[in-house]
């Protein structure tokens, strides 16, 4: 019988996911997360394989459906830390509807999106965040659709924590991951720009490094209009850092009277 083994990471050499994986492990430790109380939730894609390569509880579900599963896990046991690791196709494409409604719910889950602006698992088609003009085996005349702007949408819909980082800048990424893990205001979005050396020849590691600019101390992340300006900045300059913080929005799990005392799963008497 033919045997295939793939119990170690199946990513391409140079994939940004290796850096994200190593940084996540350090960030979880730095933030003091108890691995037994941690659930990593993912959908489908190269990014969605990440939970297999670290120590945690894992719910790897369907393409685009990490958010509904994560939402319910949090509602069923809000004592757990629920962290989604997912790609741009999974989160902003197939799961776009859930993305909008998770923000509306302000469910207290952390959402780390590995945004490489391309479909890796299916070998190089456009993703919702691909730049206009990028040619692919399907978009043979170049991408004609305007890229989806996850940060601007998240800000407009009131996401209490919106940040962006770069996979290959591990120090910055770890700082952002720890800040996100420590944030306790509800839905937490960290968009991680990630080079894909196999399929995205346009937005390479070099291309990102030349453009990213850490957001300065003069930015007031509670200023929605200033945050939107940063979120809409793309091209020669790409701001990275904490773009937006909104205080005072209650989390869904704090609003439901049934969850007022102990987590739902602990209320079960059977």
């Amino acid at each position: 019988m033919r045997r295939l083994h793939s119990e170690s990471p199946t990513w391409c050499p140079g994939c940004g996911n290796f850096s994200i994986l190593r940084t996540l492990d350090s960030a979880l430790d730095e933030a003091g997360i108890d691995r037994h109380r941690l659930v990593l939730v993912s959908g489908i894609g190269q990014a969605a394989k990440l939970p297999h390569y670290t120590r945690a509880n894992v719910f790897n579900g369907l393409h685009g459906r990490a958010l509904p599963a994560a939402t319910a896990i949090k509602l069923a046991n809000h004592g757990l830390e629920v962290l989604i690791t997912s790609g741009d196709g999974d989160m902003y494409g197939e799961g776009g509807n859930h993305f909008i409604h998770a923000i509306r719910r302000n469910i207290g889950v952390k959402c780390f999106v590995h945004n490489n602006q391309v479909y890796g698992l299916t070998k190089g088609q456009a993703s919702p965040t691909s730049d206009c003009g990028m040619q692919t085996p399907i978009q043979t005349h170049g991408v004609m659709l305007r890229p989806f702007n996850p940060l601007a949408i998240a800000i407009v819909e009131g996401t209490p924590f919106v940040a962006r980082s770069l996979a290959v800048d591990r120090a910055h990424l770890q700082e952002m991951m720890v800040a996100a893990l420590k944030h306790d205001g509800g839905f937490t979005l960290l968009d991680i720009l990630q080079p894909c050396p196999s399929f995205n020849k346009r937005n390479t590691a070099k291309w990102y490094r030349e453009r990213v600019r850490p957001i300065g101390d003069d930015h007031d992340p509670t200023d929605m209009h200033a945050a939107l300006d940063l979120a809409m900045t793309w091209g020669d300059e790409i701001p990275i850092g904490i773009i937006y913080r909104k205080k005072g929005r209650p989390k869904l799990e704090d609003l439901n009277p049934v969850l007022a005392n102990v987590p739902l799963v602990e209320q079960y008497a059977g």
Partner: protein
Amino acid sequence: MDLNIRIAGEAGQGIKTTGHLLVDAFASMGLWVFSTQSYMSRIRGGLNWQDVRIADYPITSSREDADLLVALTAEALATLAEEVTEGGLILYDGNEAEGAVAIPFTDTAKQRGKAIMANSVAGGAVFTVLGYPLDPLTGYLDEVFQAKGEEVVQTNRDLVHRGAELASEHAGALQAPEPAGAPRTVYDGMEATALSAAVSGVKFVCAYPMTPSTGVFTWLAQHDEQYGIVVEQAEDEIAAVNMACGATYAGVPTLVTTSGGGLALMSEGISLAGMHELPVVIYLAQRPGPATGLPTRTGQGDLLFALRTGHGEFPRAIFAPGSPRQCHELMRRALETAHRWQTPVIFMTDQYLADLSLNMEPLDGSVRPIDRCIATDAGEGYRRYEITESGVSPRAIPGGDAFVVLDSDEHDETGHITENLEIAQAMMDKRLRKIDGMIAEALPPELYRDDDGAETLLICWGSTYLPCREAVDILRMRGISAAMLHFAQVWPLDRDAVRERIGSRGRVVCVEGNAWGQLAMILREQQLLGDAELLTRYDGLPLTAAEIADRVEG
């Protein structure tokens, strides 16, 4: 004897309110009551009606004709007058109508109170033409309106008496059944199901609203704090079923409610529950399709779809109760089956059964949470998908000493992704092995009136149970040797038990609310059915006992 009352008019005219009033008042007298609704898909306008059938013996089916029509609009009068029996009576809400007793219910109510109180006037008139005393009616109104104050109570009482006065010329015009000591408690299929879910320990309910499933969703939402249930309205059915996977993974019994179109969107998620081995239970209230179909009508057209939905091969169970009592029993069994075998279960009902109400002995409302079959001793080295003889692996939940790892990809015993094809086959075999155990505890189909080995066997499933049973009674009264075989569990089947009960008959008739005879197709595929006739109905209305009996007699 029995008598059928039909209240008909436009949506928004309070047909349901009048229907409820009559049902509860009749039940409180000790009459047997059986009530069904028929309504068109709009909020106002159109022609809707509710039937309230009463008898001095237990009744289990609606009738196509009516002895008393209460027509609230000219259209209701014009359309439904021809379905009134000879010697029957029509009450019309107005000042004049040919062939009907005109009583201005609404105007009378407006003079004294509000238009909405017209149902009290109508109630008084109905009770009068049936020759019943008014006390049960006013007593019921007293109870209902107590909270609204003495004035409202008194106004309604007065309007009942006014209605009686206006109908006094026709007092006792219809011969009505005598009270027969029937139970006072009234349930509909929806409430019996929802109550069962709540007391069996459902803690999480997620759904996208879809008629006719919304009643259970609503009932649970309205009792969330009482039973400790988190209710989440999902953005779509895909979200709902994936939420159910997440919630069951985290350890809480979960229910998803939907109808056929929603189930179609859930297809991939049901397959995920099969792969993840999660106890996801889906309440599927059918309406006629394809596509949007007839949103407010009834049908049994989704059996094959429920059996096949979800790609790949994995175990599932399908329950199809036939009465409100069975709804109550089988919702619990559906939850238990899902948890014992860690696999999706579909509970099938339809608009007819969800909405039909009848009186019966009170259901058990005590909270008795089911056993979730959770391994509490899992620790380091735990394997979520340990290969076992039964196919069932110990199920731990996240948050304890064990890491619980689930993957929608094929996985090894620890739950991690694998492309090792030997492991893949072993995992398929493990999951499919669960079917053997599920068959061993499957409910055998119920035989009714077969003590003498009936010549003719009516085979049915789900909501055709009550009409079919009554059809057997009618056929036997007509001297035809008939019995019924009803499937309350449609999948998996204990083939020996089914074969033995079908036996050898002169004639087998499959009675179904769909065009193809979908249970018959399943039974044929399982080589359990030889020559059989189909008796089907798929115009959006339920089969009635009389119709089944007449068509069987030919």
